[in-house]
């Protein structure tokens, strides 16, 4: 140990004891904090299968995934064209419609039905952009689920999903 004036063996012991104590306290607190994170049973419910055949064109259905509503919209040609006609620089959260759907499945739009403002469930086929309207604080989303006006900062989230066949998807 360095023996500069003023640094003693006792100083070292004080600091070492304090450091060991701090690590011990942190280790003891962590289980108390981490127990509040999603438990194994919640994590086990992570995926949902949906059959798309009963959904008519122009219809939006809501399914539950991880306790949240997920919108599945069977879009008409008009709705797709509307979504693609908008210049990206007019969007608060610019994202092309093509990036929000699977290639070749342009009519199927899958969204987490939770407003990105404060978590309310937006209403379908409403608002000034023919998409969704959140009744809580007035956010308007378009036919691609992108935020167009109102306090929400981001587009409606597209959940991870894949087509397991031509007519069914697995969310999660």
């Amino acid at each position, binding site marked *: 140990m360095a023996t500069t004036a003023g640094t003693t063996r006792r100083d070292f012991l004080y600091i070492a004891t304090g450091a060991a104590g701090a690590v011990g306290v942190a280790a003891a607190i962590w289980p108390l*904090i981490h127990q*509040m*994170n*999603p*438990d194994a049973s*919640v994590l086990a419910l992570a995926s949902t299968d949906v059959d798309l055949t009963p959904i008519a064109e122009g219809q939006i259905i*809501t399914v*539950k995934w*991880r*306790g*949240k*509503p997920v919108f599945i919209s069977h879009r008409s040609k008009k709705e797709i064209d509307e979504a693609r006609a908008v210049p990206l620089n007019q969007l608060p959260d610019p994202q092309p419609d093509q990036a929000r759907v699977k290639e070749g499945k342009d009519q199927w739009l899958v969204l987490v*039905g*939770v407003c990105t*403002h*404060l*978590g*309310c*469930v937006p209403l379908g086929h409403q608002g000034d952009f023919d998409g969704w309207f*959140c*009744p*809580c*604080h*007035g956010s308007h989303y378009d036919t691609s689920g992108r935020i167009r006006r109102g*306090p*929400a*900062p981001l587009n409606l989230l597209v959940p991870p999903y894949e087509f397991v066949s031509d007519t069914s998807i697995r969310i999660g």
Partner: protein
Amino acid sequence: MHGHGTYIPENKALAWFERRLPVLGLLKSSFVDYPTPRNLNYWWTFGGILTVVLMVQIVTGIVLVMHYTPTSADAFDSVEHIMRNVNYGWLLRYIHANGASMFFLAVYVHIFRGLYYGSYKEPREVLWILGVILFLLMMATAFMGYVLPWGQMSFWAATVITNLFSALPFVGEPIVTWLWGGYSVDEPTLKRFFSLHYLLPFVLFGVVLLHIWALHVVGQNNPAGIDVKSNKDTVAFTPYATIKDSFAMIVFFILFAWLVFYVPNYLGHSDNYIPANPLQTPPHIVPEWYFLPFYAILRAIPSKLGGVIAMFGSIVVLVFVPWLDTSKVRSARYRPLYKQFFWILLVVCIGLGYLGAKPAEGIYVIAARILTAYYFLHFLVILPLLGFIEKPKPLPSSIAESVLKGKESDPMPAKG
């Protein structure tokens, strides 16, 4: 709470006990002999009222827990079970639910009384900050209690309020998931809110004791806002303050009883009698009346993070009021300009409450922005400047003089 007194009870058994734990002397010096300014008006009775309302909430809450089930499947039904089957369950629940409203009514009077008479000024800064902490604890407790019936309003209030934290950059989403214990508000959320709703009132009670302790160290402020100088300025807590507090409590409880027995659901929302549905948000969600001004501030700012910061900022700014107010004069009675701004602030806060209940569109949003701006202007600009601009009226030389001006002699014997 003035340390060890010299009190010796006459009863021998009590005297024996007092020598070993001087709790009677502490109570006597704090709540019997304690000198209170002789000019206290009825606005000073709300501290006592708040203490009693807290005790009412704790007692009714403890018995409600004996019948309540904190699960997402059974919570709503168990509250209806309390209302319909449990003996006097309707009464206990209505007292508890309306008690929250009465608690906030009293605390708002108490806060504005402090603002009017400058009760936050030197040497009462710590007392005031403890009060702000109590206010925050009350808000957290009330919010979590509102979630427990698991109706539509409960569920969506929980969703919106916990989502406030998602506005934080980077850590927002993990914090919200951690608060929920899942990917949405669900049973884990209900259970932890129940646990904390039971815990926080006792924390509140502990901080109330600190608040009273701090009060008894620095002494009460008074309507004249000047320090106690002699025994002539004070009267003993008992009987003077005790009787005055008791009378005010009775009047306050008449209002409380009217709410409980005649219009028990007047302050609630009918949507909360619909069981929680995670797939559908009610068309108009509004918080309870006591949160409306803060809700209006949240919605007034056209940015998510900005709204959240403004809302929390509107409470945090209160912590700094003792230093933002640069005037040496405490009471608004002797501050002709501050007095006017005080009333404007009160009207602005009520206006924000009104706007918080309105839909967030058109003229309501513009009005909410103006009032929000004024709210912060009051604390951050007007309050500091007034101390330099304002010419206060002359202060009375003593509390006794302020009470007795124009009278020949002192009709009240000096006590304490």
